């Protein structure tokens, strides 16, 4: 029950009891790199949503939703803050400037960079059991 085992156990409990996935596990499935708020990467994700449209993101009512997007700008972070989204995957390794990372950090939002496209990230995570919002 120590060290690595503990992590595996948490992962197991997430799957069996909550049907959720750890953010760290999400990252590993999409060759993702956690850019900020690593301390929150032990959080759980149950639902995901792919969008490049801010007005769509503002309609997300559920908590603990993961946003997959091709946009890398401040507005994505602000909009996610309003919608209580706590984890964003940025597709195709778009450049994240320091302003973006700072705002995400201030708001406790985990940012993950992935080299995959929105399509592939969505496919991998759907296959792994993350639920769609709509």
């Amino acid at each position: 029950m120590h060290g690595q085992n503990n992590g595996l156990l948490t992962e197991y409990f997430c799957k069996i009891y909550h049907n959720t996935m750890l953010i760290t596990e999400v990252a590993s499935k999409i060759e993702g790199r956690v850019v900020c708020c690593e301390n929150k990467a032990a959080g759980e994700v149950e639902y995901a949503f792919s969008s490049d449209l801010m007005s769509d993101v503002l309609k997300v009512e559920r908590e603990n939703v993961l946003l997959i997007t091709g946009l890398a700008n401040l507005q994505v972070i602000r909009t996610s803050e309003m919608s209580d989204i706590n984890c964003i995957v940025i597709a195709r390794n778009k450049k994240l400037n320091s302003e973006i990372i700072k705002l995400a950090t201030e708001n406790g939002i985990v940012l993950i960079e992935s080299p995959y496209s929105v399509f592939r990230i969505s496919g991998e995570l759907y296959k792994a059991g993350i639920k769609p919002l709509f």
Partner: protein
Amino acid sequence: MQYRYKIAGGDFSNAGAVASSVKKTLRQLNIDHRLSKRIVIALYEGEVNVVAHAYSGIIDIDIDHERIKIRITDKGPGIVDIAKAMEEGYSTASTQVREMGFGAGMGLSNMKKNSDSMQITSEPGIGTVVELTTYLNGNEG
């Protein structure tokens, strides 16, 4: 309680700063989370509209036990046909604004949905005033 904020048209790096600040205030006042999310989303859409479509604006927030009133007053081109602007999908957003993920023409209808009452008055060539009221149903500050 009353708060006043100034916003600059075109300043996308600060767009949402007012909504963010009000979100924190509502949390401190222990306003129900779902209710505060509605208020903040309506405000955010209104704030972004000033940044995207107008030249400058002032946001006045007035909170008491019963309700929150938000008044967004801007100097800008105004809205000639308000009914049309309210239609989902209608947008005059620039390419630059669209590239940032806005311009779906959903903001005004989203503001209406997320407030108890919304009033828009506008003078073309002068500016627009949007007033939003939401009742706090006993969740006083």
